[in-house]
């Protein structure tokens, strides 16, 4: 028993023997110092991408390269290794591994956003002198947690990696990363650089603290932290010691790596960096190729995961029905990603990150090559680029004297599909990956010593899994050879007809391989087969076995002649598959590149024109749009350059403006706190939202994207124009003074939370106090800055500075900045509101604090207090006929808009709903029905009036010469249910054209069919598929009421309830 244990211990010691010596560590036994002095001779050596040495020598010692060159002899003392026919490359580097790092505690839920249905965690649970937010973990240092893990290292070594950058993948600020090699040695010796990088993301990870609960909240938190960290450098007494901010500052000198995750997040990350003079290295997702020009414009370097979507099983039309075109297109185009980066000249490296199994890396790299990635770029992306990004190119990334002896030995050009990675040397230690067993291919003489004497056979080894054995005739045989162990079995071939192929003898090639059929050699052997097992001793194999009768035997096989290896064709690549186009935006109804709508001169002739100006409604009138503006409205207009549209029997109106919308954004509600004026919808627009197009079809040209109603002072809103296909910045309405969302009532006191509420306020009394408190703080802040500015000027102009100290700037507070903007009338409020008490209180606080509530939105009891609203100077933006979906809309009436209008308020009708937004003209019509306003007044409620309350009525809202050419041509009276938009024009560009829409539908059908067939083809060819994944869409709402969004939409609220 005891001896067995000792034996086992010895085995472990032997197998994990550390090859690198460390001076301070005592030796348990007899020292075994070695310098690992080797000379690899006669190899084809690639020092770095593009520099190839033939008949090269590589000399390594003590884990480093000591010589490299053509035809150098092996120095005395070095063990010579003949590498004739072999290739040597630098080992790969992965900058986005989590090797050796304990995996972060998974967030109990993620992906959703603010949770209306649960109490909040308002404070950080992290103990110690850290910052206020648990998602900021800049104090984390990966090297203090790093523990080598050979099982994981081995998996990476097998792919060719020699060094990786690891960090703790948890939180928005994630602290520092550590660069290590993948040698199986003590941590002390394999760390290349202890603080090699600093890491960030938008994902708060394991933090359960409520803030931030949105994309824009994450961005705001980063922005504020940049400012706080600057301020912290002044050692403000009121902050004490803050290790989070301290580390944040210390980490700034390192390469800054941001995990973005998709194309829009890349731009978001890059912008926040630009704001503070940081150029992030960006860890991408899968979709960046869809906006490659924007990626280039970031000037960032990228870390690209080689993670491509699997083909879906779409053979069942009932299942294919729910797989969206964009998902199928993405499946087809994702492997073009690395090639797109190469073509665009964007620096990038490749990572195994995001792969559920890293072994898919090699296969996906092959796929990327097939889709256009060059070998030189691939090698560069795996070696020199990552080394340079991290500033460790003095140690790794190429094969030069003085660098770590991290290199690969292959039996052919590196990326050739048939090439075997034989060895991965790391810090001068050889890790054998694969034996080049096929190098033993050839003819052998096989002699079997049986009791009855010698039997002689010929054996022709064709590959590691196939050999033919002959005596007089060819025998049935099975063979395997792994470079060391040999297994051979054979039996006389039966003298009968081969049975017809049946399903059971067919076997699939397994994942990735085409189906194969068993040939004669692979027919099952009879039980009486002769079975041999042995060991290769080089050119001779020796072993034992049993004959057909079960008698033991010995055998020897001797090499007669090696086969000449077929020349490897490194240049030969699979042909580039034919692919569909990238479309803008990347969703159905997107435009093909080069086919985007363009600015035109357009003359609409002989229509009924609703001017919204003093001219009123003009019959048989022309409208000329030129240079993106309204050029003329009148009779008999002409312009020879114009595209003429016949408007006979049709109506022209200004484009519809939706004062309250939640489309086209990655997140809507930051409810982590009751005051979040620092968050900005502008930070997280989503131009891929299909609802942009759908709303264009209903004549909408401008939408006000509001923060939700989760909290009293919500976020800054963003006005957009529905420029379908544009990027996120180009969606923005230029020259618009900002607005901000406020909210009152049930949502902000979280009445819908079944588990109760612990976030102040819980009553309308508290809502008022939040407003009073926020603006009191804002005014103090405003004053503190004014005082500072005065003192600063005094200091700067003082002639004698002796005895004077420069005044310290107050802490910049983005939350209060936004409120000061309100006080300074640079930012305007749109306030979610329902019942009269809260409306009056909001106005009373505003009067007391010196600001105006610009717009009351929803305002369903506005009719009760319209006179007070008029006195205060508010606008009103409401629904036509919604009511009774919650307690505070018990008294909502469809006459609301008309009463407010008659009292003298400027009234808008909004949607707050992606479906209703495309029928806003009809919603306006209801105000004629309920309350009897005129038709012109009603139309203004969805055009000019929202423009007024958004302070853009100098640009849009009516057909006045010089205003933006945002125009709709309707098939019928614009307030009629029978009216359809024929053309929706934004800035003189036709973004929706009903005839073109029909063509697009046909194109979508054709493209869908092509992709379904292609996926089915892959499945039939044996490629792995996953079950069809219905393409659900996440729809953001302000959590106020239900919607009719269809069965593939998951409302953001709903995700949280689940």
């Amino acid at each position, binding site marked *: 028993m005891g001896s067995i244990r000792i034996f086992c211990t010895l085995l472990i010691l032997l197998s994990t023997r550390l090859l690198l010596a460390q001076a301070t560590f005592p030796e348990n036994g007899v020292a075994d110092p070695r310098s690992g002095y080797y000379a690899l001779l006669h190899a084809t050596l690639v020092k770095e991408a593009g520099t190839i040495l033939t008949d090269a020598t590589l000399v390594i010692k003590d884990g480093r390269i000591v010589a490299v060159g053509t035809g150098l002899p092996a120095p005395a003392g070095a063990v010579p290794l003949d590498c004739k026919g072999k290739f040597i490359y630098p080992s790969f580097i992965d900058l986005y591994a989590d090797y050796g790092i304990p995996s972060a505690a998974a967030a109990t839920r993620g992906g959703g956003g603010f949770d209306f249905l649960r109490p909040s965690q308002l404070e950080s649970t992290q103990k110690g002198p850290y910052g206020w937010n648990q998602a900021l973990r800049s104090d984390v240092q990966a090297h203090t947690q790093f523990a080598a893990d050979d099982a994981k290292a081995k998996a990476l070594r097998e792919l060719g990696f020699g060094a990786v950058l690891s960090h703790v993948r948890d939180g928005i600020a994630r602290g520092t990363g550590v660069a290590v090699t993948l040698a199986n040695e003590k941590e002390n010796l394999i760390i290349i650089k202890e603080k090699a990088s600093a890491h960030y993301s938008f994902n708060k990870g394991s933090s359960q603290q409520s803030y931030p609960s949105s994309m824009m909240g*994450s961005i705001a938190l980063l922005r504020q932290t940049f400012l706080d960290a600057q301020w912290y450098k002044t050692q403000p007494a009121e902050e004490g010691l803050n290790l989070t901010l301290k580390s944040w500052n210390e980490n700034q000198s390192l390469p800054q790596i941001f995990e973005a995750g*998709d194309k829009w997040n890349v731009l978001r990350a890059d912008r926040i960096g630009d704001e503070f003079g940081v150029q992030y290295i960006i860890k991408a997702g899968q979709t960046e190729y869809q906006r490659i020009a924007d990626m280039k414009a970031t000037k960032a370097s990228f870390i690209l995961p080689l993670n491509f979507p699997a083909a879906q099983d779409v053979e069942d039309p009932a299942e294919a029905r*729910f797989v969206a075109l964009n998902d199928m297109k993405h499946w087809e185009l994702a492997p073009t990603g690395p090639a797109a980066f190469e073509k665009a000249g964007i620096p990038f490296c490749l990572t195994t990150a995001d792969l559920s199994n890293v072994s898919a890396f090699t296969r996906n790299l092959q796929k990327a090559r097939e889709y256009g990635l060059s070998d030189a770029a691939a090698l560069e992306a795996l070696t020199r680029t990552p080394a340079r990004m991290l500033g460790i190119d003095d140690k790794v990334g190429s094969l030069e004297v003085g660098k770590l002896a991290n290199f690969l030995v292959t039996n052919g050009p590196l990326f050739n599909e048939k090439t075997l990675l034989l060895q991965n040397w790391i810090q001068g230690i050889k890790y054998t990956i694969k034996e080049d067993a096929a190098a033993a291919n050839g003819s052998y003489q096989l002699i079997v010593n049986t009791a009855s004497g010698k039997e002689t056979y010929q054996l022709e080894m064709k590959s590691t899994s196939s050999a033919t054995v002959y005596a007089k005739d060819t025998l049935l045989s099975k063979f395997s050879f792994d470079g060391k162990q040999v297994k051979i079995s054979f039996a006389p071939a039966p003298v009968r007809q081969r049975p017809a192929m049946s399903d059971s003898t067919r076997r699939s090639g397994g994942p990735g391989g085409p189906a194969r059929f068993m040939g004669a050699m692979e027919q099952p052997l009879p039980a009486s087969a002769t079975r041999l097992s042995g060991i290769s001793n080089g050119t001779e194999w020796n072993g034992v076995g049993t004959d057909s009768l079960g008698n033991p035997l010995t055998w020897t096989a001797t090499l007669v002649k090696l086969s000449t290896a077929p020349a490897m064709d490194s240049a030969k690549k699979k042909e580039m598959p034919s692919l569909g186009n990238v479309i803008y935006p990347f969703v159905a109804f997107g435009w093909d590149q080069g086919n985007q709508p363009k600015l035109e001169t357009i003359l609409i002739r002989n229509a009924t024109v609703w001017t919204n100006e003093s001219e009123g409604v003009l019959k048989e009138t022309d409208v000329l749009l030129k240079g993106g503006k309204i050029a003329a409205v009148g009779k008999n207009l002409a312009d020879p350059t114009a595209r003429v549209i016949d408007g006979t029997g049709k109506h022209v109106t200004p484009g519809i403006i939706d004062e309250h919308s939640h489309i086209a954004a990655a997140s809507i509600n930051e409810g982590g706190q009751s005051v979040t004026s620092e968050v900005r919808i502008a930070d997280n627009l989503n131009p891929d939202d299909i609802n942009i197009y759908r709303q264009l079809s209903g004549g909408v040209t401008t939408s006000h994207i509001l923060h939700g109603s989760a909290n009293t002072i919500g976020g800054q809103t963003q006005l957009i124009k529905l420029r379908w296909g544009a990027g996120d910045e180009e969606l923005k309405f230029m020259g618009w003074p900002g607005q901000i969302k406020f909210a009152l009532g*049930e949502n902000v006191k979280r009445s819908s939370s079944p588990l109760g509420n612990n976030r102040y306020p819980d009553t309308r009394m508290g809502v008022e106090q939040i407003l009073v408190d926020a603006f009191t703080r804002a005014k103090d802040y405003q004053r503190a800055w004014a005082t500072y500015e005065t003192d600063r000027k005094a200091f700067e102009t003082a002639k004698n500075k002796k005895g004077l100290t420069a005044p310290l700037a107050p802490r910049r507070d983005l939350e209060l900045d936004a409120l000061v903007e309100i006080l300074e009338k640079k930012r305007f409020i749109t306030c979610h509101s329902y019942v009269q008490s809260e409306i009056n209180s909001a106005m009373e606080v505003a009067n007391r604090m010196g600001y105006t509530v610009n717009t009351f939105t929803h305002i369903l009891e506005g009719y009760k207090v319209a006179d007070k609203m008029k006195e205060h100077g508010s606008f009103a933006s409401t629904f036509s006929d919604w009511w009774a979906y919650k307690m505070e809309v018990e008294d909502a009436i469809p*006459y609301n808009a008309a009463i407010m209008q008659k009292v003298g308020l400027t009234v808008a009708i909004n949607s707050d709903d992606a479906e209703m937004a*495309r029928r806003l003209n009809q919603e306006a019509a209801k105000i004629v029905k309920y309350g009897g306003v005129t038709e012109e*007044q009603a139309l203004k409620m969805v055009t000019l009036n929202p423009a007024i309350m958004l302070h853009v009525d100098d640009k849009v809202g009516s057909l006045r010469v010089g205003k933006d050419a945002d125009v709709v041509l309707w098939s019928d009276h614009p307030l009629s249910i029978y009216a359809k938009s024929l053309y929706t024009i934004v800035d003189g560009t036709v973004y929706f054209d009903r005839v073109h829409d029909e063509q697009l539908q046909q194109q979508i059908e054709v493209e869908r069919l092509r992709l379904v067939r292609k996926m089915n083809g892959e499945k039939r060819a044996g490629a792995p598929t996953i079950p069809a994944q219905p393409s659900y869409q996440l729809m953001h709402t302000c959590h106020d*009421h239900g919607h009719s969004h*269809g*069965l593939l939409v998951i409302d953001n609220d709903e995700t949280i309830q689940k």
Partner: protein
Amino acid sequence: MQKIFLTITLVFSLAAIRAQETVLPAKEQKGSYYLTNATIHVGNGQVISKGTIKVTNGKIEAVGNNISIPIEAAVTDLQGQDLYPGLILPNSSLGLVEISAVRATQDVREIGELNPSVRSIVAYNSDSKVINTLRSNGILLANVVPQGNFVAGSSSVVQLDAWNWEDAAYSTDAGMHVYMPSLLPRPSMGGRGGGFGGFGGGPAAGDPVKEGLEKIEGLKTFFREARVYHQIASPAKTNLKFEAVRALLEKKQRLYVHANTVRQILVALDFVKEFDVDMVIVGGSESYQVADLLRQHRVSVILQQPHSLPTATDDDVDQPYKTAAQLQKAGVLFAISDDDSQTRGRNLAFNAGTAAAYGLGKEEALAAITLNAARIMGVADKTGSIEVGKDANLVVSNGDLLDMRSSNVTAAYIQGRKIDLTDKHKLLNDRFEQKYELKGKKGF
């Protein structure tokens, strides 16, 4: 004379200062009266211009152009207004939910998956404030439907002018409601990707198709056992759930299957095949893809909400608006409903109007909220069209009822009774018009 009568009615209903509590159900109609000079939209596609109808003891006694009117008769000259059959809201939680966010006001969804014995009619609140707002837009009957996780119980058709649910009941327990399992995989939320705005977690655990199909098999087993139970004269142990499906399996009750996807609908056809029930698909957003099969199996459809977004991003932007016309073309019997939880059903006519804008004839669109709805609910013998012998359920509008631009309901009759069109909203409007002295103001 008639003109004055009309004007007085209008002024009275708007100016009366009282709460909805004093809006009384009208008394039973006795004797005869005539409505003349109307554009009569019969409900079956026919339009009679300058028509007259005669109502006697709550029923339509005559319709047409050549109806002789005795000199002393009670006559209302409609002055060319449009006369429609009372609209029917075919799928509604009216009277079961007062305010959807307030749990105490919800009586629509019972606990459990197998509730065939649950009856919506007994919880119907005929004093719901929502009811009168529907009447103001011409909706005079509604199918009051229980909701649930699977077998939710039976619905009843009510008329919207009643003192209590017994008075309101128009056709009791006429439909059994099954909510189909979704049969569509849901994504799991989360994943580490961007953190917000994505699913990222891959497919959710479990196979919803398999689970759903098992559930449906369970229901079929239940029906089979119920059938055997029904043949026993006096079973030792009474099973109320079996009892509750007796009418259904004897074809005296219809099976309403709430389903949207093709797969859900195809699976539901099993009920028709094996149990020979009269089936109605409720929802039916994807029904246009199997319209031929629906007609072939005589399955009708209630399109729950044409004012909806398309199912898939790739779909025709206007697909939900066009579905009705596609069903019409295929010869499927269908009705249109308005299930909108914000507007509480009052936009029923406009959902039909939208279908008319996208390929359905206007009279066909009207039929989808009158006669065809009545047929689907099994009350076409009593209502749904302006035809002799039917209840005088009538709506007068001074303009096209299907278009919000022109819809203006000036009078309505249920079983011949002229009902009071005052509602909470009109009263609140009146209250504040008085506060601001807005009477007659057209705005600025």
